[in-house]
């Protein structure tokens, strides 16, 4: 017997799952990505590097800046370009804006209705209007940063190899400094709220993240130092899904907010670090549902870090000088922490500056095996004990905890 879950709702993109029952027992779970393939690696092949980040941004609206920054980092590494601290800080600020925008969408509009038992945030707003407004305030702040650094709320093209089209102004940075402080109170409240969620899903055994907090030169895991994805992560196609599946040393692993906190708590800002310590015991159990709590703690981190960066940039003043970029033959990998986990853009560029190879691996593809493992565990716990609709509801919540971005996951390619 196969129980088919309807299409997931309150996740980004189109996906569903099947639970295979044999002899009264849950045998298998298949997570199907039914969003159509989009062939981004074919789209950029043969194109001049200058145009590529703008196209890659279109992979995902929720994390377009993560894609354009990962793309720019991959291209710059291939072309041997190094940027000064000013450019790095502004990019980091952009990624922080994206984290705020994405986490607040996920927590307040997609997860909170589960906490309070509503089908959606609009209906939840009648009783918990304040909370929805707080979420929207954080989200709007994140989006203002995305406009400032990325050029638009969605799919701006301001992040380019070597720098930016336009640099933030003093007034904009002053506003970031003030608002990030004012919003901290809301983020702390979110931590208290999402700390109440029960553990569910599987306990992750392996965690993977980039070696810096929001991007890196390489990847790190719970058991070893820095490595390139090509050394440890294997991808394979599935017959039932448009997304590929990845394994770390043959096993499922987890990327996202929880792995970031567990692997990189030493890089947190003071307030976020305190909250992490307070909830450390819970988080270290590795239950994927605690990814929600981890995201709430990252809201605090993002606001504190945005404040630090704005202060630093205001103190030193903005020079606004791009680094010259010359085409040459090369290969480079960009690693970024998108809000929902590690994102990889890998390119080879030919002597004329055209892309000759591209491989993109998104967090949702990296988490695919872990999502299946979690669904399997949860289905085994509930099958025969809870009625079917309660089980399906809980399975949906389990998928939602990963904050999957399904649009992102459908062009995971090796050419």
């Amino acid at each position, binding site marked *: 017997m196969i129980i088919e879950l309807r299409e997931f709702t309150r996740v980004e993109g189109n996906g569903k799952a099947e639970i295979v029952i044999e002899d009264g027992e849950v045998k298998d779970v298949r997570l199907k990505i039914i969003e159509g393939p989009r062939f981004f690696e074919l789209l950029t092949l043969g194109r001049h590097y200058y145009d590529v980040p703008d*196209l890659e941004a279109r992979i995902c609206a929720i994390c377009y800046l993560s894609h354009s920054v990962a793309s720019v980092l991959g291209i710059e590494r291939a072309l041997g370009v190094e940027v000064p601290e000013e450019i790095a800080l502004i990019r980091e600020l952009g990624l922080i804006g994206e984290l705020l925008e994405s986490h607040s969408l996920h927590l307040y509009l997609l997860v909170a209705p589960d906490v309070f038992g509503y089908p959606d945030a609009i209906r939840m707003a009648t009783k918990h209007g304040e909370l929805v407004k707080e979420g929207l305030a954080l989200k709007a702040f994140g989006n203002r940063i995305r406009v400032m650094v990325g050029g638009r709320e969605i799919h701006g093209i301001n992040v380019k190899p070597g720098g930016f089209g336009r640099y933030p102004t003093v007034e904009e940075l002053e506003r970031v400094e003030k608002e990030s402080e004012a919003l901290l109170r809301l983020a702390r409240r979110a931590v208290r709220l999402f700390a109440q969620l029960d553990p569910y899903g599987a306990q992750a055994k392996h965690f993977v993240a980039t070696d810096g907090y929001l991007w890196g030169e390489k990847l790190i895991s719970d058991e070893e130092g820095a490595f390139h994805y090509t050394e440890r992560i294997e991808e394979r196609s599935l017959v039932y899904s448009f997304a590929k599946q990845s394994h770390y040393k043959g096993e499922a692993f987890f990327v996202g907010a929880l792995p970031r906190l567990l692997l990189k708590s030493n890089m947190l800002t003071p307030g976020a670090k305190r909250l992490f310590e307070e909830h450390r015991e819970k988080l270290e159990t590795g239950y994927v549902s605690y990814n929600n709590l981890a995201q709430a703690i990252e809201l605090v981190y993002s606001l504190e870090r945005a404040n630090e960066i704005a202060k630093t940039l205001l103190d030193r003043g903005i020079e606004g000088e791009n680094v010259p970029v010359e085409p040459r033959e090369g290969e480079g990998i960009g690693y970024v922490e998108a809000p929902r986990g590690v994102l990889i853009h890998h390119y080879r560029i030919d002597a004329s500056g055209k892309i000759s190879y591209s491989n993109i691996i998104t967090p949702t593809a990296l988490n695919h095996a872990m999502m299946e493992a979690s669904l399997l565990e949860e289905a085994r716990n509930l099958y025969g004990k809870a009625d079917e609709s309660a089980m399906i509801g809980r399975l949906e919540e389990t998928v939602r905890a990963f904050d999957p971005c399904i649009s992102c996951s459908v062009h995971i390619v090796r050419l």
Partner: protein
Amino acid sequence: MMDKLKLGVFELTDCGGCALNILFLYEKLFDLLEFYEITEFHMATSLSEENHYDVALVTGTVSTQRDLNLLKEARNHSDYLIALGTCATHGSVQGSVELPIREKLKAVYGDDGNPMRALDSKPVVEYVAVDFALPGCPYDKNEVYQVLMDIAKGIEPVRKDYPVCVECKLNEYECVLVKKGLPCLGPITYGGCNAACIWSGLGCIGCRGPLPGEVNPASEYEILKDLGYDDEYIIRKFKTFARWEP
């Protein structure tokens, strides 16, 4: 109180941005909800009970059999259907890869191909008649607000008929094509974005698709040639968002 109009949002294959952009209306979304009841919104709600829509917004390209079925359902159950965003109106980026679907699948998923029913990505307008087409990758969120408000008031929404350059001039931005020699498709691209990318000091990449009528793509081509861009670069740039024209 008058009955609210029933609004459905249907997402086919895309980046999610055109649906997300509606949520980005923030308090204006609550203004819209004075006139509309959202009865289908895949990304935001778990309810799915209605089968008639006064207005259907469809985003994305038709890239799978599922997309096609959903599109037909949206068309058959709605009075007024809006193709929302460049994927739905022109095919956008995923529509621009000009290989047969079999070869694309093979390149991505290997020799086994992928037995799921993928179709060659095409815009919504290739399959069904639409009542209104609003391009943009993404469209400007205030545009969809205006269109929905017009419909609620019984006014036929107006389609923009000027290039990006008009809004660029109104903002008094420096012309990046002439002054900086950057490739800018502003002169031949549908306006309505308030020249967002020229605000960034960069050239328009044509994400709203080509403006039909009295524009002059041949002259744009000559200008880019004179700036030193080769044929292949220019052609790919022109076709990035709009291999399919409505």
